């Protein structure tokens, strides 16, 4: 870590300083959660002070997929605070930038030609850092292109990174090994998929075609003939990232229009395509002053199994919460509660989940929802604080909820956070069956 503090001297090094910054941000979140989790542990298990600081310092050194997994785990176990506090600033892989000679080599490996032979122009240094690669700018036949090149060895490092994370996760989240395994499998599969760039191209083309009719939303054209396992060529999209965009103080109308495009994008994917861009990380979207936005990066796509979909989303129907029998059944099937729970545990967990679902599903309960409402987000935050401090939850060593939910929750928290950052008011379109019959009471 310390070596990295040196002032980057070469062009190549300079070009990618942001990769390191990204890693640092990710690291800080890990620190925060480690601290938080350990404080609980310290009081509970009177964990030895030295021991605690050991884990703490080791954890802050964690990088790459390990960090990502920890973030996701914390999101799922405490449910919301992560989503709320970190605003989905996901961990970046901390790989240093690819040198230009390695970029050339990668091209030669897959195309037998260097980048300058494939494109009319090709930027020597990276313009941007992607989550597991870097983006160069190129032109071909007058078109401006973005060329994403993956860092070497990312795919290889995933399994070993996950092995590192296991002991930490067991400690931090007070979860048993079997349950942890069940999450890790899901996460590992997804992380490995993210490294398969040819898959990403296919999915990007598929989803952008199917979502092409959504207003104010556009996608880059992908060029499969200029893409491979480790390289993706697509159109260069203009626009600003969330933070810069919001800083320009766009009008409420523009905010709403973009917010609507985001909502519609997710609505269409989750409910109609049954597969979803499950990485609503601000870096994957570009926003523009004219009220349009672009979606880049289809690395993480979650396919939603049909029965999970039915059960999970029937929970957010407002009317169903009022029917205890039906609710019990769904809770069981989704393993939010299980046979081994004592009656009182069951009651506590049920109460928690009902409250959580009510809160999370709230935007669905209205025709229109104002995500600028910080009060709503504070409620989410408070609930999750309360949940993680509940005796029963802290004692419980089983993971609750289906593993498919991991990515769906992540997607929705991410979406809500994006909309909150945008301060957008959105018509919360949803499929007909989800529209709760108006409550008579």
């Amino acid at each position: 870590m310390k070596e990295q503090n040196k002032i980057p001297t070469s062009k190549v090094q300079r070009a990618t300083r942001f990769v390191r910054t990204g890693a640092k941000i990710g690291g800080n979140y890990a620190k925060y959660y480690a601290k938080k989790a350990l404080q609980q542990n310290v009081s509970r298990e009177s964990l030895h002070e030295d021991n605690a600081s050991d884990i703490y310092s080791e954890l802050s050194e964690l990088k790459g997929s390990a960090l990502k997994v920890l973030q996701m785990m914390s999101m799922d176990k405490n449910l919301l605070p992560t989503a709320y506090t970190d605003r989905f600033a996901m961990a970046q892989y901390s790989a240093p930038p690819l040198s230009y000679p390695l970029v050339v080599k990668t091209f030669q490996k897959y195309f037998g030609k260097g980048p300058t032979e494939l494109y009319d122009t090709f930027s020597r240094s990276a313009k941007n850092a992607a989550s597991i690669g870097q983006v160069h700018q190129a032109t071909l036949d007058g078109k401006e292109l973005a060329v994403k090149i993956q860092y070497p060895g990312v795919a290889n490092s995933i399994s070993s990174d996950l092995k590192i994370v296991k002991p930490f996760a067991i400690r931090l989240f007070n979860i048993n090994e079997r349950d942890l395994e069940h999450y890790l499998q899901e996460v590992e599969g997804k992380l490995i998929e993210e490294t398969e760039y040819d898959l990403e191209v296919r999915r990007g083309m598929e989803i952008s075609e199917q979502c092409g009719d959504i207003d104010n939303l556009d996608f880059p054209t992908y060029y499969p003939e200029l893409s491979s396992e480790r390289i993706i060529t697509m159109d260069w999209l203009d626009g600003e990232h969330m933070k810069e965009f919001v800083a320009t103080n766009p009008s409420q109308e523009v905010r709403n229009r973009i917010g609507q495009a985001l909502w519609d994008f997710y609505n269409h994917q989750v409910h109609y395509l049954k597969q979803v861009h499950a990485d609503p990380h601000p870096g994957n979207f570009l926003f523009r002053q004219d009220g349009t936005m672009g979606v880049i990066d289809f690395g993480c796509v979650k396919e939603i199994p049909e029965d999970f979909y039915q059960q999970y989303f029937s929970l957010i129907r407002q009317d169903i919460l009022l029917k205890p029998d039906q609710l019990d059944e769904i809770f069981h099937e989704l393993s939010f509660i299980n046979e081994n729970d004592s009656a009182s545990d069951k009651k506590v967990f049920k109460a928690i989940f009902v409250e959580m679902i009510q809160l999370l599903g709230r935007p669905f309960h209205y025709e229109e929802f104002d995500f600028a409402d910080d009060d709503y987000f504070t409620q989410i935050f408070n609930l999750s604080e309360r949940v993680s401090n509940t005796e029963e939850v802290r004692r419980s060593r089983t993971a609750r909820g289906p593993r498919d939910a991991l990515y769906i929750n992540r997607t929705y928290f991410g979406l809500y956070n994006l909309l909150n950052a945008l301060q957008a008011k959105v018509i919360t379109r949803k499929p007909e069956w989800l529209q709760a019959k108006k409550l008579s009471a």
Partner: protein
Amino acid sequence: MATAAKKGKQTADLGEKLKEAYIDYLLEHGKTPPSVYQFMKMQKKKEEEFYNYFNSFSDLEKEIWKGFLDETLTRVQGEAVYMEYSVREKLLAFYYTMIEVLKSNRSYVILRIGEMPKPGQRTANTEVFSRLKEAFLEYANELIAEGKEIGEIVDRPIIGNRYDEGMWRQLQFVIYFWVKDDSQNFERTDEAIEKAVNLSFDIMGRGPIDAALDFAKFLYQQR
């Protein structure tokens, strides 16, 4: 198998062919040919033709290794972009290309790697790698001179003239690493090269220690 031969050099055609045939024999039989006479007979050539190029098998092997380097340099310097590279990038490009060259001779490299001194050990003149080392040091010194000229590399007392030796050890490290690398497409080697070169240039370049020394010198002179 093909080393420089497929590049179609005009000179030393037979020399290249002999190198190939020698490697071929070595890999198929697991040992060196019993005599130059027999070896040349298998090539349907007269023994004395061998001596136009090499004076012994061990001489031939030294040339094989040097040939890897020569081919690497020809390829690297043949790319137009090479001239625009910083010294750090030149060295990176060199290693990547070297590994590509070695890749087509991986079995031979693995067979002989045992004889290569571990990074850090000295190379005796009698070893098969001696000529490779000579040629590499020459190349390394060109890079270092260029680096010093444009300020990418800082000249320092004592270690300043050991940089070339350090780069040679780095090359040994890279080859060792690649021989043991079992990752797909040798991706780990790519990573190793990037990290090793970045580290070495961070060390050879201006760093905090130079600034500290400079500062100390300044304070001293103020007295």
